[in-house]
């Protein structure tokens, strides 16, 4: 039980006043960006990356991790009260959550979602702590061919399985790869696609790409739609958010089922928490039908909120595990944290646990503390957070624009970066207008260099023989799982197409 000793030492490292302060700031910021529509934890981390250059890395990562969790705590508020989920991770919670709100149990729904987020996050983080040594051992077996397979797996999963249309998903992926190729090739020193401009020698910063696509693109998109959106009517969160014992007993199995869906999905790169939250919702719905629950789908059932919320935060827990032990980002926010590690000159993966144990264990310990803090600031005060929804939209997006400009300018005090930000923002706007997903761009821009380096290393070792890419059991298993996922996705799309054809006939 080495892990327990490490974890206790980690708590010692995490429980310093300054780290607790970062934790609290992260929790408040995370909840706020979760509650506010149009913002997400990925964007919050990207904007904070440049301004945290000067911080001690442990403090910065503690803050980023609590932003990640906080975003998943706050995201259900808008969905439950307004029926308009601000983030896709909260869609599944919205179905039953808003029904509960309409039947006068808004506070109860908010409380259930906070408790669900806490339980899911805690169980997943505990699993990560105890399984991280095995993950690390597994990761030491990974050579270039295995890492290339992992990167390809992430590319295929995010663009083909999750995105709406395979071609559009792959186009987004290609855009990300193109952006990642700009700059000096690290292996040979060749200038690539820099147009001879020194500003591009270091490549295009992932911060500029993320902030441009997510923040500026979103502001332009909102400007484009302005006037088209109807103001949603808000339900007032009355009553007590606390669950009584009977309610808790009803919700507990749903919490645990949701966590069971979330834990595995956090570790595989399918873009975050959407798939497991929907799986959890579907399961609760089937179970409610089986026991002929009169509330589910009518007044709103507590299980329908509990399951998806627990699933959402459970993915964040295991996503942190996959990021730290394998160096594999499984969601956009995890990808931003990977960029943060690179900013501090660290490479997540097996070596991180050896070389930077003084960072990893306080970070893991701070996840537990962060979850407790988040529960405290969310469970009794969910109705207070909901007041953020009263901020007028034009001030909100004007503020986002200013912070986007600030974050990008802070990278290198260069106006070239700001022009690039505007250009990529326009790209993000065009992608939104033409239904091209954004997440594959980010994953490709971050994993693209890894994919290229490992592919070239593998082929250099084998002297050009591509068979090396499928020469080990791990790679074969990864490609088989990938093939199955693609096959399942094709079957599902054909079914949907047939259903649409029959319904329109």
């Amino acid at each position, binding site marked *: 039980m080495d892990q327990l000793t490490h974890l206790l030492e980690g708590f010692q490292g995490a429980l310093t006043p300054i780290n607790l302060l970062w934790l609290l700031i992260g929790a408040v910021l995370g909840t706020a960006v979760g509650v506010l529509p149009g913002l997400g934890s990925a964007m919050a981390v990207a904007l904070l990356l440049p301004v945290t250059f000067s911080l001690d890395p442990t403090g910065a990562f503690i803050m980023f991790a609590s932003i990640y969790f906080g975003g998943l705590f706050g995201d259900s508020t808008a969905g439950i009260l307004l029926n308009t989920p601000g983030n896709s991770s909260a*869609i*599944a919670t919205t179905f039953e959550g808003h029904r509960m709100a309409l039947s006068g149990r808004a506070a109860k729904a908010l409380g259930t979602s906070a408790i669900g987020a806490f339980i899911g996050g805690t169980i997943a983080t505990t699993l990560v702590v105890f399984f991280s040594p095995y993950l690390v051992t597994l990761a030491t077996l990974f050579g270039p061919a295995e890492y290339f397979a992992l990167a390809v797996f992430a590319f295929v999963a995010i663009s083909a399985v999750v*995105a*709406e249309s395979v*071609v*559009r998903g792959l*186009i987004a992926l*290609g*855009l990300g*790869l193109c952006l990642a*190729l700009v700059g000096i090739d690290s*292996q*040979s*020193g*060749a*200038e*690539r*696609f820099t147009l001879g401009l020194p500003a591009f020698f270091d490549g295009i910063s992932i911060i500029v790409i993320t902030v441009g696509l997510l923040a*500026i693109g979103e502001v*332009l998109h*909102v*400007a484009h*739609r*302005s006037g*088209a959106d109807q103001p949603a009517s808000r339900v007032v969160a009355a009553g007590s958010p606390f669950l009584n014992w009977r309610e808790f007993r009803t919700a507990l199995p749903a919490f645990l089922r949701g966590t069971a869906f979330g834990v595995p999905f956090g570790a595989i790169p399918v873009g975050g928490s*959407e*798939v497991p939250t*929907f799986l959890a919702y*579907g399961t609760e*719905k089937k179970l409610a039908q089986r026991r002929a629950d009169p509330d589910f789908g009518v007044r709103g059932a507590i299980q329908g909120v509990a399951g998806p919320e627990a699933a959402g935060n459970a993915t964040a827990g295991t996503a942190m595990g996959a990021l730290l032990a394998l160096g594999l980002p499984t969601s956009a926010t995890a990808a931003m944290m990977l960029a943060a590690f690179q900013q501090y000159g660290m490479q997540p993966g097996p070596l991180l646990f050896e070389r930077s144990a003084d960072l990893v264990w306080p970070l893991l310990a701070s996840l537990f503390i962060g979850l407790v803090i988040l529960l405290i600031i969310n469970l009794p005060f969910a109705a207070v957070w909901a007041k953020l929804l009263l901020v007028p*939209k*034009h*001030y909100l*997006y*004007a503020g986002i*624009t*200013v912070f986007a*400009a*600030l974050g990008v300018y*802070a990278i290198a*005090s260069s106006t070239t970066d*700001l022009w690039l930000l505007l250009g990529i923002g*326009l790209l993000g*706007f*065009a*992608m939104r*207008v*033409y*239904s091209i997903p954004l997440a594959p761009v980010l994953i490709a821009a971050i994993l693209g260099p890894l*994919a*290229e380096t490992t*592919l*070239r290393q593998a*082929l*250099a070792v084998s002297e050009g023989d591509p068979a090396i890419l499928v020469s080990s059991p791990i790679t074969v298993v990864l490609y088989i799982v990938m093939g199955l996922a693609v096959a399942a996705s094709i079957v*599902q*799309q054909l*079914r*949907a197409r047939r259903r649409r054809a029959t319904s*329109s006939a």
Partner: protein
Amino acid sequence: MSAPETTRGTSAAPATRWWNGRGELGVALGVAVLGVLMLLGTATMDVPEGAGTPGPQFFPTIVGCFMLVLAVALAVGVIRHPRRPGPDEPSELNADMLADLGNVESTTELRIVSGDPDLASRSATPTAPRAAGVRPVLMVVAALAGFILILDPLGWLLSAAALFWVVARALGSTRPLFDIAIALLMSSAVQLAFSAGLGLTLPSGILTGAFSWIN
């Protein structure tokens, strides 16, 4: 990538025009151009002596060809199945798949999944194009471009306040005087917190020396 925008704005033309719903051909063209540029850039690349095999041109060649294939695939798809003109469709998620996973009913619940308030009416009648859409977008773009130009000469405080003010205005704020106060408050708060607090260098411009906390 922005060229097809015009076809969208003028889609008041009769619905029988061939390019209606095929504005995405512009996207395919953009992707193809990008692929060609990638391949050209790769072919003309200066490869340093002693670069190993596979060298720096290996991966860009794959990506360039990949883009060309995708451009063709998208063009074929758009020509065969033109899309209905309608509100922007959600793109991040495969709504069909999520509906399957969540056992979601197509009537009320799917509306939330797709975020589209008039899902039911859309297939029957194409929605009228929104006239209001283009002007706010241009205002935001102009605000950002102006901000970048005046940032160094005028300093963060004034240019960020101007950026805030114009964007708020573009998005429908109706209280210009009150907004000036909010905008100045916002940009000074940022300057205080990040410049004085976190040691970030923000240009002080013409206000250099006016207040001790600006530098």
